[in-house]
Each structure stands twice: as structure tokens, then as C-alpha cells.
């Protein structure tokens, strides 16, 4: 197990390298320039040249990348071109803000989806199944930015019971999940974020559990006289690895932040940060955010793989 974990950690290094390399290349292939956002529209080309030199953008791209990488290897992700603040602090602060809503959305989505998906599989083809499947399709199909706007109109504008935007009455520094006055700022973003994983995991759970329930050993269990709940327990345990891997992916996506959801609710998370970095071509910020998110994603998948190994002895044997 430990050897497996170590191997996965080491594999994260080439993944991170590849991600940063592709990102660097894409930013340079895209039209626009990191320097443009730092100069007024009436600045001359001469000024652009001076600025490029000041920021080191006058060097060839591979050299820039190598310099950035050598600094990143020592933990220095540089400073944001726009704000001058250290990238590491910017990303970790945004990541912690995203984790607040992502974790809440994950707990709600995973619990509901697992329970409802299992119920649907057990009642396959019956009205309960059809209702759950319909709910899952709705969850997957509704664009979450649209849902976010509708929720804001209903609960913030019309009913006035929840805030429309922001993370706490004084910003994220005052946010406290255990204080209702602050926690209520997270409700609408969490509901909005919950919908997509809820639908996907519900469908996965339903099909995985249904598939196990159709296997011969289930008939065997029934023939041995096991009750419905005991049979279901066996089916769920067998379906768990498949569901877990989907859950891991979904959690990774949520932690990566949703640009649309975070923009609609002005939630200062990774999605919001990344969209700003892309729009302003803030290269150090963009690179740092992507690197940390890629590593987080790898870490989450590692945890999920280890959890799968724990619940499914077949994986351990292989």
C-alpha cells in the first residue's frame, strides 16, 4: 500500500510538469500579451518593449519557462503581475474559499446521490426509479449558472431571505460556517454546485448497483435466505469502487472551482481567480493556480484510489 502511494506521488511529478508546460504553451499561443494588461491603451510600442524587459518577458519562451520552473521547484511561484502579491498566498487563499463550498456540496451530493441511486437500482423500472432517474437527468442538464441566477432571484431578490453575493458580510476573513449570519452566504452557491455531481453520481450509483444486483451471486445470496437489506449491503459494497472513482473525479472538479458559479456569486475561490488570471494574462498567477490545482487533483485521486483498495480486496490482489 505504501509502495503504491509512493509510486503515485512520484507519478504526480511528470503530470505536474506536463500540465505546466501545456499551460505555458497555450498562453503564448493565444493572442494577447501579459504586458498589455499592465499598460494603458495609449502606451506606445516602445513602452511595451521596456515593460517586457522589466518583467523578463523579453527572453525566449523556453528560457522563461525554465526560470519559472526552477523557482517553482523551490516553492516560489512568483508574484501576480497585476497585484504584486505572492501567487502561493493568492492560490491557497482562493483554494480554501472554494473548499468551503466544495466540501459542503460534496457531502450533500454524495450522500443524497448514493442513497437515491441505490433506491432507484433496487426498484429498477418502477416509478421510484423513474422519478430518481428524471431528477438525475435534470440535475445533469440544468446549466448551473442559470440555476444560480434563478436561485438568487427567488431567495435573495424576491424573498429576501438569503444574500445574493459575496462570502460573508465583511468578506472571507469574517466568514464562519458555524455562524448563521455568515454561513447563509454559502447556501445558494452550495446548492448550485451540488446539482451536477448529484445527478452524475446518482446515475453512476444506480447503474453500478443495478448491475451487481443482476449478477448470479446475488441470486445465490437470496437463495441462501438473506433478507433484502443484507443483499443490498453486499450489492452496494461491490458497486462502491466504481462509484468512488466517479466521486473522486467530481470532488476534484469541484475543488478546481466553477468559474461560472463563483463569478455569479462573487465567491472568491479558484474559479474566480483563474478567470481573472486568464482575462488579464497574469501568467505567474495562472501557472501557479493550475499547478496547485493539478497537484490537488492528483492528491484527491490518490486518496480515492487508496480508499478503493481498502473497500475492494480484488484491487489489492491485482
Amino acid at each position: 500500500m505504501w509502495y503504491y502511494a509512493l509510486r503515485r506521488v512520484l507519478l504526480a511529478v511528470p503530470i505536474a510538469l506536463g500540465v505546466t508546460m501545456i499551460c505555458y504553451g497555450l498562453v503564448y499561443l493565444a493572442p494577447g500579451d501579459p504586458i498589455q494588461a499592465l499598460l494603458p491603451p495609449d502606451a506606445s510600442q516602445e513602452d511595451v518593449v521596456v515593460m517586457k524587459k522589466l518583467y523578463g518577458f523579453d527572453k525566449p519562451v523556453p528560457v522563461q519557462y525554465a526560470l519559472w520552473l526552477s523557482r517553482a521547484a523551490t516553492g516560489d511561484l512568483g508574484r501576480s503581475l497585476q497585484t504584486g502579491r505572492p501567487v502561493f498566498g493568492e492560490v491557497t487563499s482562493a483554494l480554501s474559499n472554494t473548499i468551503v463550498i466544495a466540501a459542503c456540496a460534496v457531502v450533500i451530493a454524495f450522500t443524497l446521490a448514493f442513497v437515491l441511486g441505490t433506491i432507484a437500482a433496487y426498484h429498477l423500472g418502477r416509478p421510484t426509479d423513474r422519478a430518481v432517474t428524471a431528477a438525475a437527468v435534470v440535475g445533469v442538464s440544468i446549466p448551473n449558472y442559470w440555476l444560480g441566477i434563478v436561485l438568487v432571484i427567488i431567495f435573495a431578490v424576491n424573498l429576501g431571505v438569503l444574500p445574493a453575493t459575496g462570502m460573508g458580510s465583511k468578506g472571507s476573513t469574517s466568514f464562519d460556517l458555524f455562524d448563521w449570519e455568515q454561513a447563509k452566504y454559502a447556501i445558494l452557491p452550495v446548492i448550485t454546485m451540488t446539482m451536477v455531481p448529484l445527478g452524475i453520481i446518482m446515475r453512476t450509483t444506480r447503474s453500478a448497483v443495478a448491475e451487481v444486483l443482476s449478477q448470479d451471486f446475488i441470486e445465490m445470496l437470496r437463495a441462501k435466505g438473506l433478507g433484502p437489506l443484507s443483499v443490498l449491503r453486499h450489492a452496494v459494497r461491490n458497486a462502491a469502487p466504481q462509484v468512488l472513482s466517479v466521486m473522486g473525479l467530481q470532488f476534484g472538479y469541484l475543488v478546481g472551482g466553477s468559474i461560472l458559479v463563483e463569478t455569479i456569486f462573487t465567491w472568491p475561490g479558484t474559479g474566480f481567480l483563474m478567470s481573472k488570471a486568464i482575462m488579464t494574462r497574469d501568467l505567474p498567477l495562472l501557472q501557479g493556480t493550475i499547478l496547485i490545482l493539478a497537484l490537488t487533483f492528483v492528491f484527491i485521486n490518490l486518496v480515492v484510489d487508496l480508499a478503493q483498495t481498502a473497500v475492494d480486496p480484488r484491487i489489492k490482489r491485482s
Partner: protein
Amino acid sequence: MVFKARARRSASIMGVFAALALSAAAPAPVRAESVLRIAMTAGDIPDWRGQPDQGFEGNRFVGYTLYDPMVQWDLSSRDKEVTIRPGLATKWYVDPEDSKRWIFELRRGVKFHDGCDWNADSAVWNLDRLISDKNPAFTPYNFGRARGRTNNIEKIEKIDDYKIAVYTKIVESLFYYNMPYLFMLSKCAVEKAGNDLNVYAKSPAGTGPYKFSSVVPRQRLELVKNPDYWDKARIPKHDRLVLIPMPEVTTRVAALLSGQVDWIEAPSPDTLPALKAAGMTIVTNVYPHTWPYLLNTVRGPFKDMRVRQAANYAVNRKEMVELLGGIAVPSYGMFIPAQKFYGKPFEYPFDPKKATALLKEAGCFPCEINIGISSSGSGQMQPLPMNELVKEQLEAAGFKVKFDVLDWNSLLDVYFKGQEKFPYDGINFSSGASDPLNFVKNQMSQYKGPVGTNWGSYTNAEVDELGAKVLASFDPAEQEAMITKIHEIIVREGRNLFIVSDLNPRAMSPRVKGFVQAQSWFQDLTPVTISDK
């Protein structure tokens, strides 16, 4: 609902008793802090370490609140054109012996928020840190953001404690129009921070009408009233100003309607009916913000003046105003009629037949054009639906329009580098001829891209000659006549496709009183009061 009404009634009765009890017991009522909360369109808090970023919105909300420039805009009226007035300098003039030496006499008795004095030393230091990388407080971002306004400064010299001289590289009679964009920081505060502006950001000090209170990076900046502000007429009439970046327009509208903010910038036309129905105040005014197509005059169909004029005849500006729900007015030039340099330009009527005739005369029918547009961006209004309408109108007259939709940063790249390296016959690039200096340079061939910002390399010998005279003349009446003439010439020649001017909409709660919307990108927030109801 019944429960709510009962609860409200009980609360009111209890409130009356509580108020009576308090009035009997308390010696004097304590006034609650009045707070003005503004949702900006920016995606982040404008940089508060000197020269703000986030375009002119940064100057509006952070530049002119925390800091002062030496020369200010007079934003006190909604009816007259915005002009300049003394700020931290009380007087400025060119040295009669040397046209490249400008004297600025500085205001006495002004203190920065940290208690340090404003004087010639701080003025020289402030300008020097924007141009010289040898200054310990030099930063590339402040250099970059100020560069469009400092690139003609050769050196700065202290004459006495309250007088400085600024030397320019070339004679530029309108040089002082650069000054409203340069913000003055406390030298003491920066030095106390070890010349590290990231440390300085924790306790910045300017001389402006507001002082720094707190910041949550990327989320909110809070400023408080500066009760000792040197201009007593502009001491803020509210106690606290909270600035919140909120780039998504529906979010801004929801935040205003739900009472989370008191004021939002740039509501979109489709949200205005809902805002009005909810009792919100919509404030608009003309200002120098036009939405044109800058045309490539050296290559492609627009090289021919007749094609440029045809485009101007083909556009139905009134229809565009309707599309925008009335928050724009037709535009016929780079200036707006309220500006003194507008003159009497030819106002192209909507005449598609004439447009077609001109295209045929020019031998370009159908006339294929490739235009670079953006999907959003600073001052770009509602670029996608607006451009679709322009395309429809141009094609009805005989053009065949192809759009390249770019993101804002990419379009800026096209603008910076000039037309040469790009396949565009024109770009949709909003502009603001707030000051005559930039306007004149943008029409002169010597400032064509990539050296300057004459996009499309417009060249006209008469305009070049007039421009050179404007920059060399120190007679305001003569300057005005020449700038007006330049404007009339470029309109007649269809230098751009002039379409509409924005009316600068903002929406605010009925609690917000006293705001006077000046004809400017910048606004004075100090007269605003917040009532309880």
C-alpha cells in the same frame, strides 16, 4: 405573510418603546455610521498602491478617493463640460524662456493621511518614481500604468519648497493634461515600508478625501472619510465607502435589488425596467465615451475615403439607441457635442442609398470587410448584439461583413501593435476623448501604431500640420480653433465609423442622495449622502 406582518407590528411597537426609553436615558443620540456600498464592474479591487489598474474605473474609485493628482478634474456639475482645475498644484505655466520647462506651484498646508507634508520634495519624488528605475520606490507596474502620461517627461527639478519644474522631451503645449492621471503618494509612508509597495499596501497614505480603512484582497476595499481634507467643500458626506468588485452584471443587479449594495455600475439595458420597477434610481449623463469602428486607412476597402463615408451613411444610429434601451445617443465624431472641441462636424444622416452609390463609385460592391470585435471589455458596452446590428445595417447597404471575435486582451494587442500585423479592415474599440492632447496625437501620422495609438495609420497633411501647431501653441483660443478644425476634417473624411456614445448608466438605491453625475469617466463621490429610508 400574516406572521411576518404581526412580527413587524410587534417589532414596531417594541421599537417605539425602546426608542422612548433610550431617549429618556441617553444624553445624546449616537448617529449610526453612514456607509456607501458600491458594486464595481471590475473583476478585482483596483490596485491601491499608487497608479490604479482596472482602467478608468480604478482611477474613479481608488485613484481620486485615496489620492489626489496635482491637476484635478472639476466634477462638480452635470450640465457643463468637465475641465481641469487646481489640485495639489495651485498654478501651472510654461517657462516663458523655455517651452519645454513647466512650472508647477504647489498647494501649501496639505498633509498626507500619515501626517507628512505635501511639498516640492514629495512632488519631485512622486514623479521620479514613475519614470526612473533608479528611484528606490520604482515599480514596473506603476511605471507601466503611468507611462502613457509620463513618456514626455525628461526630468523633474525642485525650485523651492513649494515650486517644481518639469522638463519635457519635446514641446507639448497641452502637457498639463497628463497630470490628472498621476497620483501622489506619501513619501514617508513608502519609505517607512522600506520602499516595498506590498508592505505600503497595508497602510497606504495619499492626500485624498478618503483614508484607507481595511481590505480583503479580491473582495472589498473599505475607505473612511478624511475629516481633515484640504478642500473643505469636498469632505465626504458619508462616513465609509465600501468598494466591491462584481464583474457579472446580473449579480450586481441582484445585489442592489436585495439591498446588499447601494450603488451599481453599468446595469445592462435589459435590467433597467426591473430596476426602475423596484424603485431604484437610474442615473445617466452624456460623457466623452464613443463606440466607433477604427478604420484601416492604409490597406483594404477603407483606404478609399468613399468606402469610409459609405459606412457612416449606412449605419442607423437611432436603431442602435433603441437596441440599447435609450442609454446611448447617436455619435458623429470622436468628441461629443457637449465638448468645446466638437465644432460643427458633418453629421452623417442614415442614407443607405447614398452608401450603396458610394460603394459602387468606389468599385467595392459588395464590399467585403473584416472587423475585429471583442466579446466584452472596458467600455465596450454590449459588443455582441451591437455589432450584429451594425453588420445587418452595413450589409443592407452593400457591405459584406466578417467578424473576428476576440477577447478583450487580444483586441488590446491588436490596438497596441497597429493595423500592420493583423488582417483587419477595422476594429471596434471604444474610446474616450477626455482630453484634447490624446485626441490630437491619435490623428497625427507620426503617432501611428505601433509607435503611437493612431490605429489605422490615418494620414492627412493638413491634420498633421494643425496637430503640430496645436502642440506648439500656448494660446488656448488658437488651440481650440485648430483642434475643432481637426475634428471636423476627420469626421468629413470618415476617419472612423462613428456609431453611438454611451450615457454612462448607473443604478442606485433611493437611499442614495446628492450624487451629481459629471460628464466624465470619473465621478465625485464626496457629496453623496445615505438616508435611513
